Structures are given as C-alpha cells and as structure tokens.
C-alpha cells in the first residue's frame, strides 16, 4: 500500500505541508483544511498526524463510500458520502479530518504534493506490503 511516511524528528514546524495540502484541495491556505497536521510536541519538536491507510474507516462507512484503490490508498467517494462522520470517530489515529461547516470528511490520499515541498525531508511517500 502507498502511504505518507512521516519522520517527525526532521520536522522544523514550518507548516509548508499544511499550506500545500489545503491549497491543493480547498484552494485556501488554512491548516483546518489540511489532511496533514503539524502540532507542537515540546520545545522545538513537532508531531505529524496523517493517515496511515489502515482501513479501519472502510468498514465503518454505512454507504460504502470509502474504498481502497489499486495502489492501496483509502479514498472517499464524495457523492456516496452522507456526512455521518462515523469514519471520523472510528479513525484510531484521529486523521480522518473535518472542518467547521464541512460535510464530507477528508484525508490524506498519499499524493506526494506536501512531501515534494517539505524542506527537511520529513515526509516521504512509501509503499509497504498489505
């Protein structure tokens, strides 16, 4: 499966990834609308939260709007989603995201956009066996 591997120890907290992600998918620079979240985890250290493609949410979705694509990435079909947020609650790592006023949840689809721009190499798309 393809996923975004994070190396939090390399993160310098510049928030570039959040800008890239929210701009790509929501056309705004807004951390609330980024599928990856950077948060402070002590002095000069940061935590990175992002989907690891574990598939727990897939089983939870009542309309089968969440599926796994050929590359092993977990995807949401917006037209099937009825906005119940069950997947948000079910995600063991709290990375199925929502924003205030939003209806369809969103998540990292391992597109590589943020990783390409990360100045420290803290993000990397990798493939692991299912």
């Amino acid at each position, binding site marked *: 499966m393809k996923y975004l591997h994070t190396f939090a120890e390399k993160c310098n907290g510049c928030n570039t990834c959040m800008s890239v992600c929210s701009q790509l998918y929501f056309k705004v620079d807004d951390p609330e609308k980024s599928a990856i979240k950077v948060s402070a985890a002590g002095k000069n250290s940061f935590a990175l939260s992002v989907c690891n493609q574990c598939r727990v949410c897939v089983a939870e*979705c009542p*309309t089968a709007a969440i599926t796994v694509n050929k590359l092993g990435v977990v995807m949401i079909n917006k037209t099937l989603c009825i906005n119940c947020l069950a997947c948000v609650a079910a995600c063991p790592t709290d990375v199925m995201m929502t924003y205030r*006023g939003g209806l369809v949840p969103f998540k990292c689809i391992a597109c590589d956009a943020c990783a390409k721009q990360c100045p420290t190499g803290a993000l990397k798309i990798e493939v692991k066996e299912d």
Partner: protein
Amino acid sequence: MSTNEAKYDIEKFKKAHKILKEFSYELKPVVKGYNDRTLYINLATLEIKEKPVPAAMKKKFIGGKGFDLKLLWDAVSGSTRWDSPENEICIATGPIAGNTNYPGSGKSLVTTISPQTGIPIDSNVGGHFGPYLKFSGFDAMEIQDKSDRDVIIYIDGNQGKIQIFEAPLEALDSHVLAEQLHEMYAANEREKQHVSVVSAGRGSEHAWIGCLNFSYWDKRRKLPRLKQAGRGGIGTVFRNKKIKALVVKYSGLTGKSNNPVDLETLQKTGLKLHKEIISLDDKQCQMRTIGTAHLVEIMNDYDLLPTKNFRFGSHPDAVKLASWVWKKYFTQNVPDGCWYGCTMSCAHGVDNFELKTGPYKGHKVLVDGPEYETVGGCGSNPAIFDPDAVIEINFYCDTYGLDTISFGTLTGFIMDCYENGILNKERTGGLEMTWGNWRAALEMMHQIARGEGFGLVAGKGVKYMQEYFAKEYGADAQFLKDIGMHGKGLEQSEYQSKESLAQQGGYYLTNKGPQHDEAWLIFMDMVNNQIPTFEKKAEALHYFPVFRTWFSLQGLCKLPWNDVEPADNAEQDEPNKVPAHVQNYVDIYNAITGEKIDKKELMLQSERVYNFQRVFNLKMGHGKRPDDYPPYRAMGPVTAEEYESRAERYDKALQEKQNINPQGKSTEEKIKLLRQYREQQYESLIDAVFKRRGWSRDGVPTVEHLKEIGMDLPELIELVKKHL
C-alpha cells in the same frame, strides 16, 4: 453473495400494474426539521391530498407519534374498530429524524387502532422509509379506508409524484417482495439504497398479530434488510386494507437535509456520541457485535428470562442461546445501523441461513436478528433452546409479517395449555405443542400463513384464545386468565416482572399494553433497590414513560440513550437517566429546530402526548383502571411448581413482609396468602402512580392536570369530564 439481476421477471410484474391514481405535489425543502405538511391517502375513494400542519399541532404534538395520534384521533370515532374503513395507518418521523449525525435518528413511528387491543398501538421502527418520506416532503402520512384489490402506493420524492396502482403479481412475503421492489424502482444497483419498502406478509392476512417490515438496502450484502414495526397487529390492518406495499424513493440525502439552524452543534454532538460508542461499546453492551441478544445470559442469571410461559426466569439450557452463540452466527465487521450514521450498529443478521421447513425450505436466506426479544419470546419462553430453530422462527415471522414477541408469548401460552390438558392433539389438529417442539411451533406458523387449522385460532393472540378455550373446551377461565400473558390484549414482551412491583407497573400501567418501551425498572427496583417506596416507584413510573415517549415524538431510537453510557455516568446525579445524553437530545433538538428548550420542556412535550394517548384510550372505550391489571403470573406464582421453584424467596417474603410463619402451611395456602399481599401492593402502586401522573383514582387525566401541562384542548376536556 449472488446479485439479484434476473432473479425476478420485473417487466412482467410491471405490465400487470394498473394505475388507479396519480398525484403530483410541489417539492420543497425541509426547514428546521419540518415540512409542515402531511400526506393523506384514501384507498376507497383514491383521494390523495396534502394537509398543512398548523402551528398549534406542531406545538402540542411535536411530531412522530404525536402527529400520528392527532391524525388518527381526527379520523376515528369511539366506535371505530380495527377493520372499520375509517381506521388509519399513520406513519411519521419527527423533527430530529433523518439527520445522519446523531446515532439512532432514523425511526418511523406507526400507529393504528389495534386488532388486539381496540385502542391505538404505536410501534417504533428502523429502516429508511420514514426519513425518505420526510425528505420527499411529508412529516407524516395517513392511509384511510380499504382497497378492494391488492395495491402498491409509490412515492417518488425526487419527482414529487405519488401513484396508487393495482399490483397482482408481486410476492406477498416480505423478504421476496422487498427485494422485488428495490429492484423494480432502482435504475441500477447503486440506486437500490434510495428505495425503501413497507410490507407485511401472508401471515398478516390471517392473524391479529401482523407486523410491518420496513426495509433498507444493505449495500454490502446486496439484499434488503427488514426492520419490524412489530407490536399490536399493524400488519393485520395493512393487509385488511389490501395494501401490498408502500414504496418510497428518495436520493440526495446529506447531513444538511433537515436544514438545521446549527449544523456545527449537530455534528459536534453526533461525533461525541460516535466516539463514545466506538470506544466504550465493547466494554459495555456489545451492541456493535451482538446487539440486544447480549442480554440473554444476563437475564438468565438474574432469573428474569421468561421460560415456560413465564413460569420461571432461568433455565439450565439457556446457555445454548447466550450472546457468544449469537456472535458466531452474526456476520461481524459490517456496519449494521438501521439508519445512516448509527454507529451503535445493532441490527445484526445471519447470512446464508438454510431453512429447514415451510415454503422456502432449502433456501439460503438472510435473517434479520434475532434480537433479545425474539430469543426470549421464540426461544426460552416456549423452551426452544436451539438457536437454529429460533433463527428459523425469526425468519418466518418476519417474512410472513408476524410479530415475534406476540408469536413467542402466545406459543408459550399454547404449550402451557397443552401441558395442562386444556389443549391436546385433537384440538390442535395434530400439532404436538409440547415444550421445545419447534417443528410444531413452525408448523403452526405455516398454518397461520396458509390461513388454516389451529393456526387461525393461535394467530388471534392470547386474549382471544383465553375466551375461545373457555367457551369451546370448558377450560377454567380463571386459570387461563392467570397464565395468559397479555395486558389490554397485547402479549407481554420478554422479561419476568414477577419479583419487581415497579416493572409490573412498567408493563401494565402503560398506554398500549405490556411492552418494555415505556419503562424498564427491574434493575433499579429489584436488583439495586433504588426505588423502595411507592412514591419512588411512582416517580420512576412517571419519569421514564414520559421521557421515553420523547424518542417517539422525534423519530429516535431509544438504544443510544442508555445502551452506551459516558465513562463518567456513574458519578452523575441520577445515573439511570444518563443525564449527559439527555442534554445531547436537548442540544440536537435545538440545533435542528432553532427552538430553545431545556430538559424540563423536553419532558413537557412528552407529557402532553402521553396524556393525549391516555385520553385517546378513553375515547375508544378503554383507558381506565380496570384495563391496567396484569395477569397474576406477571405478579407472582400461579402454581405450586412455580412457588416451589422460588420457595425460599416466597417463604421469606411471607415472614418478613406479611408477618406470616410459613411453617406447616401447604403450598396452596402460601400461594393464596402471597397473592393477597401482592395484589394489594399493586393496588397501592396504581394509586401512587395515578396520583403522580395527575390522573384520578380511576386513571383519567384530571382537568387541572391537562391545564397544567398545556394539553387542555377542548375535545379532551369535554371527554375527560364525562369520566371524572
């Protein structure tokens, strides 16, 4: 799993349809949880019309069961019987219903004048029909009068179109009919989830315990699921009106379909409960893996699981029906919510179950359930300790349109009569109705479906049989009265109330009959002794029935209220009320409707409708104190065998509560003494409860009380005055 393509000749069915009536209506969005209109259909005149919901109706009746009862009240008179043309079937949701965020928000409420009780019955049922009806444009629908041929009513909620048509060829049994209609109305596989079907079955045509099946499409199983509006014979009325099915189709559901005023609060509150359920359910009720069937061994351990027609509360073989057995049968790891967004997900099913009897013998079917009530009713109560048999009974009850609770309780009654010589093989037409004989029980059910033999008698329920056996076979009427587990004509649901006075009230001081959806007080009363005095019992018998009525005003499921509790619930004041969840309800109601109610107003909303229903019973010639008594078996030991089975408990009670030394007394004497005491206790309970509810000694809501709660509608005042 196979797909259904080409399983049925849908084109042939369609060709045989004859349109009787078409009706168009204007599509309008739901605003703050309401459409402010209802749908009226008359099957004899074929009139279809919209009715506006006046502001006063909204204020006093809120929605759901409140709307149903108001429409039904206006349609019937005191002399209306279940099969009178003016009787209606009303289906409603409620302002909160249909939201996809808060678990348990998709219930339909169904009412009619019951063939079993002669008063309004109401049933709270899952499936997608109610919410789709709502988003198609109607807060409720009422169907009056009868057709002279089998019809289907179709509502297209995206086009604003309603059709009534003759439908001669589709199946009658629900598991087939629902599948046919999902297929017929979906242009492709994906559209099947936008369809919902209401149907009964062949059994409903011949029995008074007919139920309705409300469907939803299960995308993963590629089959319709069936949820039952079980109690009180609504399916019987449905088939008496010659309705084959109701079908609604609606696409476009979103988290905003109710147009709530405060989406954020709704989402936040829903998410909070989703998280609670997902993290705590495994440690608490295991609804997500087993559902209500998790209760079987708990009830057995506390001596509360009905066995042998409620003689006893436990049985050594009950482990064969325990939760871990069901867990193995139920397909795991699939979302089993009966409405979108219910993470409680308790509506489990058994897949690929091979039937051993009846017209579908050899078929591999999907069985919805069994839930606890079915296991208690169709398993332990007739002493059928074979899970396969329980599943098969469950399946046939559903597809024939028969209520599993009534079927279970009446089967227990029949087996009891058989053992006592009131029935024999000759009288049952060859059915050997001995304890545990599931083949005979199933054959009796197939007879109901075919409309023949002893099944015709059995299907009319316990009350009918009591009278029939006394008249036809000269059986002891008092004994039949003592062991016939019904109140007002409705069979009791599946808990032992013998040792809990409060639960006797919880069952029998109810509006529709002994059904556990008003109050379940056994643990509070018997196990934890939290309500020792009459006043405390009366307070509980006021609070819980009134509070729980609110679910039915809103189109909510009761289970997410207290089948999961916040981790700190036990530390709260009054943990039995689950105060944090009650606050959630206040919050989501306000978030959707824009009102500003608090917990007190929530109770008042319910209390108005609760009292209205009581007065409705009065209108139908019932609803007074004499209607509110249990059969003695619900209160104590009828036979020596029952007394002996709990001799220690009863002897102690005689000594401690009545100051009678049991030594040297015969069991019969002791039964009599205990009975006197318990019957007296029940009288005192009624006095206390009626007083707390603001009713007269006779059980009639007083004028002052109706004024106090703001339900002093002229018609009600006029009616109660005649009885005060």
